[in-house]
């Protein structure tokens, strides 16, 4: 059972445009939602994360929007640059007492065209 569903699988955006990636989860015990960026041949790098007590978090050109009632969260990449071309994974984990195990979405391959 896939507990975190991510869409789209791939995305092409022009330089300067906005990339939007969506994730939906089922497990109401999840309370930590990170996004990772992975370049080919590299390990995933933590990009930004959010807890369910806030609806939005912004770090530079990256923004997470969180909708607790809908059990959905999304990543917006503003002013997308060719260097943002990578695979992005959303993830979710329950609180520490449950072991902090991350469940990953399927990934979105983003290509930013110059």
């Amino acid at each position: 059972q896939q507990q975190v569903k991510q869409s789209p699988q791939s995305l092409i955006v022009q330089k300067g445009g906005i990339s939007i990636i969506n994730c939906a989860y089922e497990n109401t015990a999840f309370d930590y939602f990170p996004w990772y960026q992975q370049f080919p041949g590299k390990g995933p790098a933590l990009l930004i994360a959010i807890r369910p007590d806030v609806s939005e978090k912004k770090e530079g050109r990256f923004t997470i929007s969180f909708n607790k009632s809908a059990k959905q969260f999304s990543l917006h990449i503003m002013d997308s640059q060719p260097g943002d071309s990578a695979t992005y994974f959303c993830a979710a984990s329950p609180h520490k007492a449950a072991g902090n195990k991350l469940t990953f979405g399927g990934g979105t391959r983003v290509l930013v065209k110059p």
Partner: protein
Amino acid sequence: SAVISQKPSRDICQRGTSLTIQCQVDSQVTMMFWYRQQPGQSLTLIATANQGSEATYESGFVIDKFPISRPNLTFSTLTVSNMSPEDSSIYLCSVMPSGRNEQYFGPGTRLTVT
């Protein structure tokens, strides 16, 4: 964040043999995790390795196939035993610094089994 190294970075192995992957972190961490990422796919948790206790394996992964050691707070190993071509994947370790929610990933070990 934490600086994580993995050895080897890649290897080509014959079926039936075993490979031990090392994960070293530059600071003491309580929780370490091992993931598998099959080509073009998302990350799947293999096991959680906490120092001083037996590793906890996820459904579908067993100790006889993926024995894990965690001798101290900065080091862990994952062995892929009796390998078959289906074990060809990227194996990643991650760490969670004490008192934090974030997980940081190593660069991965790309394993090809022929």
